[in-house]
């Protein structure tokens, strides 16, 4: 299914805004079910696009459980395992987790799960900030190709990909629209 809004033939839409909404709604229900409510939960979105997804999940949890669930955002720049390998260091963004995470159930939120290295870094970052009771992981898409023994607890959509494909999650809060597309890396396109 080719995407008419884009000039490239290598772009395929895999989720539209309704698909994203339904996936997040299901994840919200699964979070409540697994944790027997939402009392002790803190949602932590991994910057950049995990942050608005965490906000949306908080709203959904409020609709289901009528409890305000705190939302934080986490920059993993200081915890990456590839520091010092690029021409210039990665830009950092401020993390902001408004509550003490010690003793809480943290639900990490990211848009795409790939190698698992981002999640590894996020877990390390959280453990430097406190001692959560447990850490769970919610992702909108799981595209496979794990390099570390890490799995998600809540998955919006499993999307088998090849390594030279690129998953682009576009969110209203940042990109002005909700959709997920898959595209071939430039070098392989044609």
């Amino acid at each position, binding site marked *: 299914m080719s995407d008419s809004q884009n000039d490239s033939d290598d772009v395929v839409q895999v989720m539209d805004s309704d698909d994203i909404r339904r996936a997040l709604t299901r994840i919200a229900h699964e979070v409540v079910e697994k944790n027997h409510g939402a009392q002790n939960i803190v949602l932590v979105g991994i910057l950049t696009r995990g942050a608005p997804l965490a906000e949306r999940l908080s709203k959904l949890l409020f609709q289901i459980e009528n409890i305000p669930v705190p939302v934080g955002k986490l920059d993993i720049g200081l915890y990456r395992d590839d520091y*010092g390998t*690029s021409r210039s*260091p990665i*830009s950092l*963004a401020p993390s902001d987790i408004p509550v003490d995470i010690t003793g809480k159930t943290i639900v990490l939120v990211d848009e795409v799960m790939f190698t698992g290295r981002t999640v590894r870094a996020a877990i390390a970052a959280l453990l*430097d900030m406190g001692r959560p009771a447990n850490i769970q992981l919610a992702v909108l898409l799981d595209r496979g190709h794990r390099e570390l023994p890490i799995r998600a607890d809540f998955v919006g959509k499993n999307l088998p990909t090849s390594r030279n494909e690129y998953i682009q999650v576009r969110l209203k809060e940042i990109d002005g629209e909700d959709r997920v597309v898959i595209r071939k890396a430039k070098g392989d396109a044609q």
Partner: protein
Amino acid sequence: MRHLLTLRETSAIDIRYLLDTAETLKEILARPVKKVPTLRGRAMITLFYENSTRTRTSFELAAKFMSAEAINIAVAQSSVAKGESLKDSLLTLQALKADCIVMRHSVSGTPEFAAELLKHTSIVNAGDGRHEHPTQGLLDMLTMREIKGRLEGLEVAIVGDIAHSRVARSNIWGLTKMGAKVRLVGPRTLLPPDADRLPVKVYDNLAKGLDGADVVNVLRLQTERMERGLLPSLREYSRLFGISPQSLKYAAPDALVLHPGPMNRGVEISADVADGKFGIHAAIEEQVTNGIAVRMATLYALMGVSSDSEG
């Protein structure tokens, strides 16, 4: 960035990057456990040919909070005392696999010499003669930006012994690059001879120099200057150029007062101003804290460049 030698030769883009990064890293200083693993396995060596407590301690803590190794060379007890040349000292530290050397030297331009000499080690200038002290400039700018919300269009008065001040020079270049307006205020004997070639306005009258200033950066009066006849007396200096609640009235109503320390209370700055009495906004301790943050940012920026990727 491979080195941080001067703010004069650092681009506005890099200055903004360092300030933004410092602002982010400052959060670590508020944690109960102030440590991130980012610079694990990297080594910073401080090489100070001039006395310093706060700058050296600040760099050491910055390195340690980022998990780098921090080693201090006490020059007086080192092989320098046995006659080793600066060149050989630097080459030795490079061979010891220092990723970064933080150096202070009484001779202007020494860090440039070091940066040209060393191919595998980054150099941070922690003060060279009367030339520059870039991390002090950055921490002053971070403090101004944090409290005033901007640097662009800010009227900054630098008051005191400017001729001998590397802090003033780093402030001048950094601030003007970021769009602030800088004035130098002091007695003629303490104004730099090349002031007309600097992007600043110069005043030898405190009332005129402070008029409407948003920030008053008070420099330490280096009392050893008096012996050379540049000043008649400390009392007269204090009366004409000291920053007191009275003289601060010339500045903008919510003027921010900074001082790089160590302070001579009662000489260039009154105790009431230093302690922020009468609603005066002094941020001298905040500057010290911000100093760690900009040094963390500097180490992050310099050590994060792979040594193969740049010559």
